[in-house]
């Protein structure tokens, strides 16, 4: 019997993924551990490795196929000496069906493929298949869309009940290949197809803003001492330099350990308090936003934080983050200071309870001891899930954060 290679569950929330690319052709031999395909999950493009050795005899799901359910056979592997005729005994996979198994079980039921190790990370609920997401399209339209690599989710249907028909796919194909400009009324526009990151971001943030009772606390921090210290440290470093952001990450980490009541998540029936500061840092990437995580940030020094942040940001931009590198986290930092933003209120990244929005460091007049002075100030706004964290706790956390920022030598201890 040929060995079925199944669509792996590469993250706890993954119920389906897009098969981006085959790195092996039919007929090529495969060694255990070799990368055979790339799969796009909710947030990242990941590699699938072979477990068994043999010949990649048949590709069942072609590259470019979207929404392949976890555990769908995607290819058949023949071991040495096996008869290719046995391939036909394996039924063709049903694409577009969503498995209802719990994601963790789905991982266990995938023996033929080594997925990257998936740990139980943060207490995220599995994303349930939503019947409202069903796209109605004629069989022909589905086939045409597959051939032209168009995502049916991005096409609006003109048939009854919004059914996508041949004409809609043809028009969509035209608008992506030729001029993308359509006229509607007086203004011109074109539609940009949604990638997975944008879809997930939209869904999660909508849920957050609708379900999480946000409140906001803003505090001004003086940066003069921190900037002076940074200049001194950087003068003593060879090639790499510390950024203000590295100091902010360390300050947040230490403040969270000092005020653990802010390092929590709302669990409906309980409040979960974390022992470690796993800090998600928002990174803008092409077409979206990722939040790679620095784990146990409280136990890492500035240099380690700086190096890790650089490496994570790089991976985020190239779409190569492993699930454990962006799933979980206990607290998020979003820094828009480099864009000249004075201050802003960020949307909480559930199930986390807090997100800290960092504004620009700028010289402002301040009043100190009855005197107007010039100081470098930075406004930081904490968005808080009021179910999990009250105003006093949030304020205590911000005060602790401010202390670390304004007395940065403590960050070196």
């Amino acid at each position, binding site marked *: 019997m040929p060995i079925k290679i199944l669509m792996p569950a590469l993250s706890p929330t993954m119920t389906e993924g897009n098969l981006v690319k085959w790195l092996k052709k039919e007929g090529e031999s495969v060694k255990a551990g070799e990368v055979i395909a790339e799969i796009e999950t909710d947030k990242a493009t990941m590699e699938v490795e072979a477990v068994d050795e043999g010949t990649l005899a048949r590709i069942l799901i072609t590259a470019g196929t979207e929404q392949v359910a976890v555990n769908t056979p995607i290819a058949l592997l023949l071991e040495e000496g096996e008869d290719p005729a046995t391939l036909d005994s394996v039924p063709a996979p049903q694409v577009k069906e969503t498995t209802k198994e719990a994601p963790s079980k789905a991982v266990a039921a995938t023996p033929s493929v080594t997925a990257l190790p998936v740990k139980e990370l943060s207490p995220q609920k599995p994303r349930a298949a939503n019947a409202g997401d069903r796209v109605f399209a004629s*069989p022909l339209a589905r086939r045409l869309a597959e051939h032209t690599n168009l995502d049916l989710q991005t096409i609006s249907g003109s048939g009854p009940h919004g059914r996508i028909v*041949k004409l809609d796919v043809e028009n969509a194909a035209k608008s992506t290949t030729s001029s993308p400009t359509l006229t509607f009324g007086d203004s011109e526009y074109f539609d940009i197809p949604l990638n997975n990151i944008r879809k997930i971001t939209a869904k999660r943030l909508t849920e957050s803003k609708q379900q999480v009772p946000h409140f906001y606390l803003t505090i001004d921090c003086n940066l003069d001492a921190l900037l002076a210290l940074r200049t001194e440290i950087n003068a003593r470093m060879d090639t790499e330099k510390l950024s203000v952001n590295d100091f902010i990450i360390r300050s947040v980490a230490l403040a969270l350990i000092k005020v653990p009541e802010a390092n929590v998540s709302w669990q409906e029936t309980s409040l979960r308090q974390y022992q470690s500061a796993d800090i998600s840092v928002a990174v803008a990437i092409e077409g979206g936003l990722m939040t790679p995580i620095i784990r146990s940030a409280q136990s890492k020094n500035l240099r380690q934080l700086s190096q890790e942040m650089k490496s994570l940001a790089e991976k985020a931009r190239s779409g190569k983050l492993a699930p454990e590198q962006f799933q979980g986290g206990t607290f998020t930092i979003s820094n828009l200071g480099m864009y000249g933003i004075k201050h802003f209120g960020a949307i909480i990244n559930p199930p986390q309870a807090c997100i800290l929005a960092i504004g620009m460091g700028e010289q402002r007049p301040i009043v100190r001891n009855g005197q107007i002075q010039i100081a470098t100030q930075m406004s930081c706004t904490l968005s808080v899930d009021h179910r999990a964290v009250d105003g006093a706790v949030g304020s205590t956390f911000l005060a602790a954060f401010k202390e670390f920022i304004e007395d940065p030598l403590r960050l070196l201890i």
Partner: protein
Amino acid sequence: MTQTLTVREALRDAMAEEMRRDSNVFLMGEEVAQYHGAYKVSQGLWEEFGDKRVVDTPITEHGFAGLGVGAAFVGLKPIVEFMTFNFSMQAIDQIINSAAKTLYMSGGQMGCPIVFRGPNGAASRVGAQHSQCFASWYAHCPGLKVVSPYSAADAKGLLKSAIRDPNPVIFLENELIYGRSFEVPTDEDYLIPLGKASIVRPGKDVTITAFSITVGHALQAAEQLSDLGIDAEVIDLRTIRPLDRETIIRSVKSTNRLVSVEEGWPFAGVGSEICTMICEEAFDFLDAPPVRIAAEDVPLPYAANLEKLALPSVEKIINAVKTVCYK
């Protein structure tokens, strides 16, 4: 070489040619001999072939259909005319239990080379009992072949093939098109094989399947649809069983849409069979659900206005085509 003939004349010529060719072929039915048939299809046959081969029967379909089946069992090739197929219901036990099943039940030792022919479907204001299409009734049964031509040329070529066929064949004519004229080849061996449909109008946007009188409706609809920019392909099924699956599937694969037209009732009709087949065989090529045009699901009304509304029409076909073309 062709000549212009009515469907009525073409049927007569087919029978005459086959009777001249094979002395085992004979015609029986009510008033087929001296009166030349209730619809004058057998004109001149009694004069040419005499009492032994053109036989007037009593008014008992069950009786003379049974006589015909018995004659076929022992090697003759009867053509049994029903004055209309509505009366074949009297003889349906002979047709199905005796004619259709004997080859199977005798293990191939005894066949039944017989043709049952006559007008089928609605005529004009003859009431519910005299206005029904038997295509799906008979096509349901293994052991029977069911043929239903539209043009005079097809009527002749198919009837000749039916008479020569070693199996029982139900040959469904239509009273309203007996008088229509078509070009018919003069060749005495002009045969049209059973089981082959004909693309009577090629097109690329939608496939319309029809048989018998509804082919005319479909062709008219196709003409009007071309004014709307819809290029319809019309398939004359000609044989209902065995159905020419290949021609229909190939057509739908190219047009992506199907409208089937028939005069029978919709439930378990010929259209139901075609739609199912297309869903099974060409699902990935469909851009719209197949649509059936059939008679309304009621006994055919006698009132002229209601009768018209209950039957398939050019307008109904046009609307169905627009639906499947999303226009």
